[in-house]
């Protein structure tokens, strides 16, 4: 079923909307959640929470394409859940590794509670991403948006794992310099 038809179901408050969303995007959202949580049951719960959130926000929203919208919700919910789990010493996996890597680009002191600073930082990150080549950006986002391992990225791209790692290392270095220059590190 096309996204527009699924959205029509949401707008007519038909519960079939959830079923159709799950059929079309279940695997996609599960993949996102699983990469963060690395636990099948937790990932499934996150995906269910994603459907619930979509049901509550559509309408008034009519997001197209649905994939990016649902992906964002799943990712946020999964990170929240990972954070709660970590408090009980259960969190780990790719999420922990990714965070460890990103330490290279940040000061470590919380600064984004202020909405203005957050927006400014987001703009800077968007500028940085725009200036990357398409390949570099995709590799970076596979790692830090989809939380994929360097092995998985190597499989998609045909690059060797070491090339993926060195590419990520260089991009993180450039991001560090960029944020430093912008005074946002």
């Amino acid at each position, binding site marked *: 079923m096309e996204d527009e038809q699924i959205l029509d179901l949401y707008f007519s408050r038909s519960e079939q909307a959830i079923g159709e969303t799950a059929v079309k995007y279940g695997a996609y959202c599960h993949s996102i959640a699983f990469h963060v949580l690395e636990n099948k049951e937790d990932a499934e719960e996150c995906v269910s929470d994603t459907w619930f959130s979509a049901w509550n926000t559509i309408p008034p929203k009519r997001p197209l394409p649905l994939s990016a919208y649902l992906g964002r919700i799943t990712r946020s919910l999964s990170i929240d859940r990972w954070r709660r789990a970590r408090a009980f010493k259960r969190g780990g996996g790719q999420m922990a590794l990714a965070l460890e890597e990103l*330490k290279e680009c940040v000061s470590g002191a919380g600064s*984004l509670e202020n909405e203005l600073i957050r927006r400014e930082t*987001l703009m800077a*990150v968007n500028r940085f991403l725009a200036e990357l*080549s398409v390949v570099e950006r995709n590799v970076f*986002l596979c790692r830090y948006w989809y939380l994929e391992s360097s092995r998985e990225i190597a499989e998609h791209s045909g690059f060797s794992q070491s090339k993926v790692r060195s590419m990520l290392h260089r991009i993180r270095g450039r991001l560090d310099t960029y944020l430093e220059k912008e005074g946002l590190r």
Partner: protein
Amino acid sequence: MTEMELLELLRDIPQGYIRQADAFRQGHLRILKKQRPGAAVRKILSTAAMLVLILGAGFLGFHNRLTKAPGNLTDQAILSTQDRQKTQPDTEEWQRMVLWEDLSFYDLDTGNTTNLSQFCQDLTRRNGLAETPKPSHYTCLDLDGDGQTELVVAFTGWGDPPHLVLGDFDGKLCAVAYDTPQMDRLKADGVFYHAGIRSWAKLYRTGGEWAVQTLEEDHSHAPDAIWTQWVSAGTEAEPEAAANTEKVTPELLMRQAHSDLTFWKDGAEVSVPANLFIGDGYSLYIPQEGWVYEQIDYHGIPADRWVCTGAAGDGLGQNSTAEPTQLTILFRPGTDYQDIWDWVIAVNPQWNMVQNARGSLYADTATVNFFPAETGFIVCILETPRFGTEGLGILGAMWQSFNGWPSTLTGFRHRDPEASFTLTRYLDDQQQWEEYTVETQLYRAKGYSTYIPKEGFESEDILYGGLPAIRWVCQENREVWFAVVKLDTQDFDQAIQWGFSAGGSDYGLYEDASGGVSGSSTDGSAYLSMQFHKSYNSSIYAAIRHYPLAQTDNLGGYVKLMTDQFQTE
């Protein structure tokens, strides 16, 4: 910033990046192979060339096709095909072949070799659309400053179809799709507005692909890129009847729907059958064959254009130049002859124009005639090859058949260049209401118009809600202002969401009965209102007014007037 904050921040990056990365994850995007540069496009072109040879029909480069006699076509086609096998195609050829002959290209986003038709199908599938987007406009310009011309194709369809940018990378024809927020307001020099990073930007080439370079300067006022309406191969576009032309019939104009155009060629009179074209405010006869109609953006103004495709160009004599034979007609507001001459000369610096006693402008390859209308001029631009013979030939006959509509039929969406309005205000010191007159002048931009007081307001370019805006600020009280923003959505619901976001938390905004967003500031001192209007091409404009509540019955009247007079076009 902490690493967790950075990771969470990535949630809000442009969704186009997320989708691209997902395509990469799915293995749809592979790395561009750099060995054997040029092999792909050469292979495609040589296949096309073989087909041309086999079919015997041949094709010519666009410029050749304009002027060659039909009898010479096949020989010329074979010659130019052989030439192409030796060298790379010239820029115009590959662009024309992409647009009309489904020449394949390498899609850097997906790693697939595709063509324009297939790209539209993929776009439908990838974005979950019910309707397949179609190419609607294209422009050719140097986007990345390397001296080569790129092709940019825009699409119509549900949602916000991307711009497809195509360029030649060492003989390999490559393409990248940029979502509208990533490439908006494209300028003639290749600069564009990147809403994702809220900055003007430019492409540059790096490692066999394009990257975006942000620019510090404001490019709002740079001339816009000139877009040409895409016409599917082998057909002539049916002109879209504007609302105000539907009521005008040949009978009403007392002109025949069909007639012959006559002109002199080699000392003999020649007649060609022609159809009456009824435009916005004018009519003229267009030959039934040999001319392709386009709607274009002529330096920011919508224009009708007919391009000679060859057969009917005999009256212009034989020549082999790349200069087109075409007629362009547009309406430009303003009633001052000097202004209109200056504008034509400014936007055509390549022409060394002189003026004749009747007010027309002439250059070696162009003649520009002006037809005064009620609130502006209809401008007719006749372009011919430099070495054409027999004067203007059929083009002259077409111009001779031109007629402006009689004033009783004036159906321009024209507005008076100036207008007076009577407003009322409350005089605190005298405790009474007073009527007063406001003198205004028409402000007309692409897509909208409104009346602005002649005195007391100054305009400025700002960013509002992350988008470029023009704002008129009251000199007496700078908290009184009116602004216009072109939104990067065509959806009213999203426009309203943008309004809430742009207004910020300082205002208690609500969706008002008119479908706009309004509300007072949380401290009760000011009022903000946004009205959303859709233009004929489905762009949404926000007309925004703001004033201190204490000025509701006084200066607030000015910005309400500007809002009430706002119209999309």
